[in-house]
Each structure stands twice: as structure tokens, then as C-alpha cells.
């Protein structure tokens, strides 16, 4: 199952943690990490397709967030602001590092070592489980073939479960743009998966 992101707006409990971090409370920052690192790490992993790179990027994002915290205005949820930083950092990293990450990581990640095993039904037969693992690897591979912009909306909406408003805020897009981009990304991924989806 996919864990859906729960992002709150007003009365964001993260705001109190942010205040404490700004007051020098490092434990509060640890709490923020605990609450959000999994979400950001998964976003990064789906974006770059490699654990090591995702780990590096996640670490960089949180360090950047820590430095940028005094500028956080609390107009939006902390998690949305966090996603915006993560998204921008990821796009810059992909541009800076070239397609090295996207291509090599997404194509060389061994299926057996891939932790994405949620689609594997434990009650399924060995053949079926192998089939499911392979299918997940294919999904990840085809996802990497999309543009980062299309990949991002798919990850945020269909994998991480953000609302259109949250995605619009995180990606700094109009709401209508999010919807149309999401539709095009889904249709494109569907075309790439067509051979695996048809029964």
C-alpha cells in the first residue's frame, strides 16, 4: 500500500516545531526529520530511481531546509514548503548531473534488490510474485523515461497522494496546469506500459 501524505494547512503542528528549531532546539529539528524524511526520501527515490542518490539528495534538501527555516513564512504547510525545496533541488540536481542519475540508476537497479515490493502479493504463487516484481521494475523504468516535470506530478499525485492544491503550491503551478500535466503524464506512462498492461 502506498502511504498517503497528510498535509495540513492552518494549525500545522510543524509550525511549532519550526519555531522551536529557530529558537535553537535541535530536538525539534529531529522531530521534523522523523515526520518528513520518509516522504522526501521516497519522492527523491521515485525521481532519480537510485537509493544512494536519493539519500544524498534528501540529506542536501534537509540541510537546505535547515538553513532556509528563518525565511519560512508559515503561509502554507511546512510539508508543502518542504516539497517545493525538494522538487527544485531535485530538478537542479538532475540538470546538473545530467541524465546520469535518471538513466543509469533507473535502468541498472536490479529487480531483486529493488525495495519496491509492495505490489508483490505474499499469497501469490512464486511465478506470480516474480511477475509482480518485474512489473514494478518496469513501472519504475518507464517512469524514469518521462520528463522530470511529468514524473514529479505523477509521484506527488498518484504515489504520494497530494491534493491538486498542494501540488500546485509545491510545484508553483496553476491548478489547471497541474490537472492537464497530470493527465498527459498518465497517458504517456500508459503508452509506455501498454505492452505490460494488456492482458
Amino acid at each position, binding site marked *: 500500500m*502506498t502511504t498517503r501524505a497528510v498535509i495540513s494547512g492552518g494549525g500545522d503542528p510543524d509550525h511549532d516545531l519550526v519555531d522551536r528549531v529557530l529558537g*535553537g532546539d535541535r530536538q525539534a529539528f529531529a522531530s521534523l526529520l522523523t515526520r518528513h524524511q520518509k516522504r522526501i526520501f521516497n519522492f527523491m*527515490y521515485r525521481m532519480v530511481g537510485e537509493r544512494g542518490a536519493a539519500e544524498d539528495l534528501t540529506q542536501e534538501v534537509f540541510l537546505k531546509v535547515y538553513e532556509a527555516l528563518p525565511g519560512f513564512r508559515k503561509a502554507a504547510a511546512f510539508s508543502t514548503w518542504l516539497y517545493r525545496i525538494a522538487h527544485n533541488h531535485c530538478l537542479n540536481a538532475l540538470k546538473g548531473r545530467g541524465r546520469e542519475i535518471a538513466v543509469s540508476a533507473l535502468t541498472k537497479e536490479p529487480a531483486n534488490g529493488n*525495495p519496491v515490493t509492495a505490489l508483490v502479493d505474499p499469497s501469490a504463487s512464486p511465478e506470480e510474485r516474480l511477475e509482480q516484481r518485474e512489473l514494478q521494475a518496469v513501472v519504475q523504468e518507464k517512469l524514469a523515461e518521462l520528463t522530470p516535470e511529468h514524473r514529479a506530478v505523477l509521484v506527488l499525485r498518484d504515489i504520494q497522494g497530494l491534493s491538486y492544491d498542494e501540488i500546485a503550491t509545491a510545484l508553483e503551478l496553476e491548478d489547471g496546469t497541474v490537472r492537464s500535466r497530470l493527465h498527459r503524464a498518465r*497517458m504517456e506512462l500508459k503508452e509506455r*506500459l501498454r505492452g505490460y498492461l494488456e492482458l
Partner: protein
Amino acid sequence: MGCQDVRNQLSAYLEGELEVAPRRAVEDHVRQCVRCQGELVLLQRTIALLRGLDEVEVPSSLSAAIQAGIRPRRRRWWREVASWLFFPIHVKLPIQAVALLLVSLGAVYLYRSAPEFSEAPQPPVTTESAPRSEAVPSTAAGRADRLDLAARQEAAEKSSGQREAQKERKVPEQEDAAARALRKSAPESAASAKPAEEREALRERDIGAQVLRKEAPAGATIAAPLQDVMLETSDPARAIARITEIVRALEGKVEVKEERHLILMIPAKAYSHFLTALKDSGYAVSPPPESPPAASPEGTVTLSLRLTP
């Protein structure tokens, strides 16, 4: 609704975002169009595959690595000060503005109500007058200075008196520093200003030959040089009376300085008559006076006459 229109709506349809009419239109078309129905199913499976992807586990070292990478948050000292002074700015700034206004008004009120603030600063009388009072000049210029000094001191004391009258001093024993210092440095001035003036006048009139000759600058107070002469007599009182009689007859003046010392001021044109009358009276002066002695611009000859037994 054509196939392309329907396919453009498939994502929204699966999200449940379409209104009733468009939704029915899509459903009606899909029921009749096998290809669009197939596209809908494929899109459904694609989304299901994505949503079925679970989260990957976070490396256990990630949190520690992040926390090790952050530096202790140290707010810069000026941020601390600014924060303490101004933040929250919408609260502190108005308070500070009101406080500043009140302090300003208070200062203006205090300035206007307290005379010691509104008075002009006292001129440094003491420092200027002290050196002057040390030397007592005997000349007319010195006298003018001393009169000026007395006037200043009088003004200073008057000012001090006014202040004391105006305000009940918290420390009345604290006299005005200027007046006190003035009195200390010029003991003969202040209250004794008038006697000092009189003494000075007397001093000017004291034209004893020795003193004047030694101390007075040439041509300063005595316009004409003195002629020191001696007159031998066994009866000084009679001699003085006779000399006075002669001098007054010649429209001159006689001053008796001491018992045997006279100052005679004789019109120069009558000087020879004076000598003749003196000789006729049986008196002779020595040394014999110059003929005629130097006269003042007013035409007066001054003699310092001492009577010897």
C-alpha cells in the same frame, strides 16, 4: 462527444471530478466504443500500478547523517538585539514611538518650566576676573578695569540673588559658584566696591612728591613736573599761613600734605610774583627754583615745598 474528447476526459473521469452531464457522456461513449473502453482500462491499471507502489524504506543512517551535517543554530548577535528591540515589530514599534513622543514632550515641558534650563549659560566671570583682581593698578585704565570688575561682580551677585529668590534651592548652602569664586579671588571688590572707588580717588589725590615720582608714569596723572624746594623757617605755622596767603592772592592753590609739607599750584604767569612776594616776606627757597619752571598744559607750576627748621 468524439473519441479524442473522451480520452482527454478519462483522467478527470477516474478522479471523479466530472459533473453529471460530462460523466454520463463519457460513460455512454465508452460503452459503445471498444477502443476508448480499452484506453480507460489501461489508464486505470497505470494509476493502480503507481498507487500500488509502496514507500521505500529510509536508510537508517540518513537521519543521523542529516543531523550531523547541521550546524548549531547560532543567531547572530545583531539579530538577537534586533529581535529583542523590535520584534514583534507590530507590537514594539508603536510602543517605542509613543514612548519617544512622551519623553520628548516631557523634555520640552521641563525645559520651559525650569528656569535654570532656560537661562543662558553664565559667562565665565570668575575665570576672567580673577587675574585682574590680583594686581591693583594705580592708573586710570586700571581703575576702569576695577570698576568694570566691581560691576561684573555686582551683576553676578544680583543674578545669583535673583535665582535664589526665584527658586527654593534644594541645597541653599550651595552658593552660586561664580559669585563665591569671585569673592574669593577679589576680596576687596563686591560689597566694598564703593569704598574701593573712594580709596582710589584719594590715592589719585595723594600726590606726594616721593611716591608720585617713583611710581607714577611720566605724564600720567601729574601733568607738570614737580619742583622740590626747601624753605627754612623757625615758625612753620606762620610760614604756611603767609605762603597760603601769597598763593591764593595769585589765584593759586595750596594743599597741606603734612605739617611741614605743602603742594603749591601757581599760575605760571604769576610765578615770578610769587617768588618776589616770598622774598619780600623774608623767606628764601633752596635750591633756587628754575626761572621759569616747566608748567602744565593749563599753565600751572607745581611746587613741592618742605619746611625745614
